[in-house]
């Protein structure tokens, strides 16, 4: 009995209990290890947390809803307290969703909180991914975690859509009808898949129970698993940080999990919880009682999916009515297939492969723990903006009817404009974003070399007017000069001395990426620019005179 653990005798009751548990599960080691984990602080690093907390809230509210929701498509007549639907024939699923809304204490609040949390979950995941993309946090060693995150996004969409379909109201039924149409547009196997999924001809009587099982069991289980992998990899890789004085590729500057981050994160969970609770309490979401029970004949104006599926709906709306062929008596509906699957395939393929695409172009195989400011990776930023514009055009198209009515426009004109923007928007977005990024880099360079414009105009003895420039302090100067600026890597011959076609293509891409790069000022340049001004130690007037020759 010479080990320190055995000698330790706790004095209080709490201490004894803690010691009992610790000796059996060894928790203190984990706390010691994980509790000293350091996380850097930046507001944009918190969207992943928002998504995680939304997911926790989804689990809590969703569990409440399962107590009362009955996913049956059996027919019934509504007998609840919402008068405008009294006696209307509907499915048990819809009737129980109405009961949750009107006859179960707190049910409507829980339903609305669940739905708002779902919208926020996907929004937070999206913004988190955009942050990771634009700051280059997906680079080695985090490529696989980027892929796990992308899978989480797709799972989020699937989870959202299955949930949206459950109440079996008119809106969700119309959404399912579109999915049915898209499935049936798949050549050869489409109609078989549809029959398998719906248990016969649409809508059938099995789809809601099946979606329910997917929604409350399978997809959330996979999401949980993915979140576990995602967070585990974050711990393994450590968190990235923006460059700054003292922050290098080999350290993490910030606060430890215990106690600072544990407290902050715990508090932030309740902030997210509170915001969602306020939204659920004061703002209607998915008023299923407005839509009525699903029936394949009616459809309502303003029928849209939830926002995260909107872009696919928008692509369908933008597609002109061409591309349907009849081949040997079989219909090939490219007019449905292309818009429903094409843009999604394009965006998701690019999303999944981007870390490798970029590493291939830059030939950069190093580990990166320091983030890029978006302006310091102009081409990546421009490509990201192009993708965002591409997405947003389709997203806007999903609300083309509301754009038309609310801005007194012609629905046809809105569609024509969005069709043009579908192709031109990403190009314009790319060019504008790249120019802005390069311009910001040049501005940074200018400030690093010549200091900040003070707005103070001074007249010199010989009559000339100049503006006083104030040099930056070292901390700010560091941020402006210390960034990576990859250069064009021309095609390299391989071991046999040959330049392959793929390598040539890579060379072309590398030139497009980096030929107009703005190099950070070198120490020599900074020294030269500052030598006249005496590092701002001297009087401003004196500096102005000294800096005359460069004006």
């Amino acid at each position, binding site marked *: 009995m010479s080990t320190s653990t055995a000698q330790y005798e706790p004095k209080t009751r709490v201490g004894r209990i803690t010691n009992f548990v610790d000796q059996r599960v060894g928790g203190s080691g984990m706390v010691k290890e994980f509790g000293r984990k350091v996380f850097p602080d930046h507001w944009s690093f918190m969207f992943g947390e928002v998504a995680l907390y939304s997911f926790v809230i989804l689990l809590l509210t969703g569990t409440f809803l399962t107590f009362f929701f009955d996913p049956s498509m059996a027919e019934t007549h509504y007998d609840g307290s919402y008068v405008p639907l009294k006696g209307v024939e509907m499915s048990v699923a819809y009737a129980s969703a109405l009961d949750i809304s009107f006859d179960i204490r707190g049910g409507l609040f829980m339903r609305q909180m669940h739905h708002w949390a779902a919208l*926020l979950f996907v929004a937070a995941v999206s913004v988190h991914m955009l942050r990771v993309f634009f700051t280059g946090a997906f680079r080695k060693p985090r490529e696989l975690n980027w892929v796990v995150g992308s899978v989480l996004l797709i799972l989020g969409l699937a989870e959202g859509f299955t949930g949206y379909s459950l109440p079996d109201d008119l809106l969700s039924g119309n959404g399912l009808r579109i999915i049915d149409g898209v499935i049936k547009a798949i050549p050869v196997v489409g109609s078989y898949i549809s029959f398998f999924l719906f248990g016969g001809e649409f809508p059938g009587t099995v789809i809601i129970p099946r979606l329910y099982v997917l929604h409350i069991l399978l997809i959330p289980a996979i999401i949980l698993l993915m979140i576990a992998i995602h967070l585990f990899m974050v711990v393994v890789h450590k968190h990235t940080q923006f460059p700054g004085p003292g922050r290098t590729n080999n350290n993490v500057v910030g606060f430890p999990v215990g106690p600072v981050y544990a407290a902050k994160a715990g508090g932030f969970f309740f902030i997210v919880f509170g915001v969602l609770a306020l939204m659920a309490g004061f703002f209607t979401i998915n*008023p299923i009682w407005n839509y009525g029970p699903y029936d394949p004949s009616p459809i*309502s*104006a303003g029928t849209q999916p*939830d926002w995260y599926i909107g872009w696919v709906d928008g692509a369908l709306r933008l597609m002109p009515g061409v591309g349907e062929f009849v081949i040997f008596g079989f219909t090939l509906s490219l007019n449905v297939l292309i818009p429903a699957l094409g843009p999604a395939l394009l965006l998701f393929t690019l999303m999944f492969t981007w870390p490798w695409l970029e590493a291939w172009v830059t030939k950069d195989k190093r580990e990166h723990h320091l983030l890029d400011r978006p302006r310091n990776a102009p081409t990546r930023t421009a490509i990201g903006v192009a993708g965002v514009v591409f997405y947003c055009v389709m997203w806007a198209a999903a609300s083309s009817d509301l754009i038309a009515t609310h801005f007194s426009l012609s629905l046809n004109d809105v569609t024509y404009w969005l069709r043009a923007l579908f192709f031109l928007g990403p190009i314009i977005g790319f060019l504008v974003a790249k120019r802005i990024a390069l311009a910001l880099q040049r501005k940074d360079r200018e400030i690093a070399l010549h200091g900040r414009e003070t707005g103070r105009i001074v007249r010199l003895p010989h009559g000339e007017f100049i503006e006083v420039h104030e040099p930056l302090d070292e901390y700010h100067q560091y941020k402006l000069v210390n960034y990576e600026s990859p250069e064009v890597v021309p095609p390299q011959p391989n071991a046999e001395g040959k330049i392959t076609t793929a390598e040539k293509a890579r060379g072309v891409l590398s030139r497009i990426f980096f030929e107009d790069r703005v190099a950070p000022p070198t120490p020599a340049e900074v020294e030269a620019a500052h030598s006249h001004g005496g590092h701002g130690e001297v009087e401003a007037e004196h500096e102005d005179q000294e800096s005359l020759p460069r004006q």
Partner: protein
Amino acid sequence: MKALSQRRRHPLAAIALLLMGLLLTGGLYAVASGANEAKAQSSPYTAEDVEEGKKLFVANCATCHGMSGQGTETGPSLVGVGAAAVHFQVGTGRMPLQMQGPQAKEKPPQFNEEETRQMAAYVASLGPGPAIPGEKALDTSDADPGNGGQLFRVNCAMCHNAAGAGGALTRGKFAPQLAGVEDVHVYEAMITGPQNMPVFNDATISPQGKQDIIAFLNTIESTPSPGGADLGSLGPVSEGLFVWTAGLGVIIAFTIWLTSRSS
């Protein structure tokens, strides 16, 4: 019977048969269509109403609809549109037209109820058409809003939205929002089919069905939104917009606050 069979080859037999056929179909049609037009007889206007209405018509409507309502290149003929159409178009301010456009927009009515009635009387005198529905037709005291809701979703929601929030049609036309529209105007819109709206005559939706629809609209209008602010009843678009602006905006404000101490 023998006499009939003997004369069936008579030169006039074909004409007699044709005459009988015409009489039969015409008679049946008269009986059938009488059902729809029975109401038209029930609201009589005095000769004075028609006279005053004509004066108002000539001064305010004839530029487009012609001196005797026969229609011109810029406005349709009003012969046979009935008093209900006038009462709807003038009563909601759509007529006289504020400006040319994809469709007539609502504005504060330009004429009072009496003047509107006089113009309606004049237009009704041009040819038979749907009359202004009386109190009995608009009585919704025993109407069934549940049934009205079903009829509304099948017949109206595709343009007017399931909650009556309105929706877009092609080339700048639109189906207006239904909240705040008077019962009589809803009824008249159904029987006259203004602008791009189809006519829902009594064979399509029975008078009882129309009352149910009006009762449904009144119920959803008078029921406060159960879940809080309804965000315009525009469906997932306004919800998505809300979560991206207000929801995420507040969250971002908090993230900035939480990390503002350091960095």
